[in-house]
């Protein structure tokens, strides 16, 4: 029954679709710039992973992906790694260092894309540090373009810490997106034979119509387990 509830969980659908779009954007950039050396890097914020998702780790994860597209590890990063290794037990990175290293990684490239998914799921306490770090990087690397998704309450933080550089677009997955998502889930459900045609029809009819209402209700419903 839990699995069936996942169809009806507006929060689940919302989370899935917003990640869907981030993933779609990243791959479209890779395809569009396949003939050029244009690095792309992404991070997916997750409220269940606040302990590891520090600003330093997030910026470091972006740096890691950019470095991975380069033929050589930039000298500044290699040297910083060696210095850290020489310390007993190794030394973790501070956010200011990760910013410096990301800038070093981006130095050889003319343009790059950075995608931050679900910024609203990032720790509120650490959000200013993350956004300020991204602002520093974007100011010193003019070819960098940031794609950020998030729910409305983080908009003010984005506008505050990325002053003047953010274009905000209201976004709503259209009803076709929701219907196609539901059709896909129903089609791939191994237990679909247990579901009557009438119930399937009801799902396809009701969910797209009711999704805003469901979303309000579903905010207080535990998210159904997914395959993630």
């Amino acid at each position: 029954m839990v699995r069936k509830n996942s169809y009806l969980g507006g929060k689940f659908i919302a989370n899935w679709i917003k990640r869907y779009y981030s993933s779609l954007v990243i791959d479209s950039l890779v395809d569009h710039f396949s003939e050029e050396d244009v690095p792309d890097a992404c991070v997916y914020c997750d409220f269940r992973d606040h302990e590891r998702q520090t600003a330093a780790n997030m910026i470091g994860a972006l740096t890691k992906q950019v470095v991975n597209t380069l033929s050589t590890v930039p000298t500044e990063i290699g040297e910083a790694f060696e210095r850290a290794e020489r310390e007993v037990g190794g030394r973790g990175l501070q956010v200011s260092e990760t910013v410096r290293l990301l800038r070093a990684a981006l130095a050889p490239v003319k343009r790059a894309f950075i995608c931050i998914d679900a910024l609203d799921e990032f720790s509120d306490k650490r959000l200013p540090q993350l956004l300020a770090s991204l602002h520093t990087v974007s100011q010193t690397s003019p070819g960098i373009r940031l794609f950020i998704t998030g729910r409305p309450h983080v908009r003010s933080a984005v506008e505050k810490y990325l002053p003047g550089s953010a274009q905000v677009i209201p976004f709503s997955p259209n009803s076709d997106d929701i219907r196609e998502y539901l059709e896909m889930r129903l089609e791939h459900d191994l237990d679909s034979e247990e579901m009557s045609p009438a119930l399937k029809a009801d799902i396809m009819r009701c969910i797209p119509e009711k999704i805003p209402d469901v979303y309000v209700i579903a905010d207080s419903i535990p998210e159904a387990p997914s395959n993630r």
Partner: protein
Amino acid sequence: MDPSTQLELNATGTGYTNSFNRTNTLNTTTNTTHADERAKVLNWLSPLRPRVRHEDVRTRRQDGLGEWFLQTDEFLRWRDGKGEFGKATLFCSGNPGVGKTFLW
């Protein structure tokens, strides 16, 4: 290029050499060693593995779903850098007037 030199000094002199040359002096360099050294640097940069999450999401995508968004003027201007430099960031959010009733 010889794969064993991939992580060594590049033509512009900006490459990283130190830890990788240590193995060269012993004539024991292998591609695996270089890959290991590179992996160590990458792991040190962050324990997070966002590409794993990305691969998970993308395998569950459906052809055509959401393609309309990639054709919007806002997205194309942002991607192609046709806007002013100041608009380097595209923030996609739910309509502030809708709040939690909004799908996203």
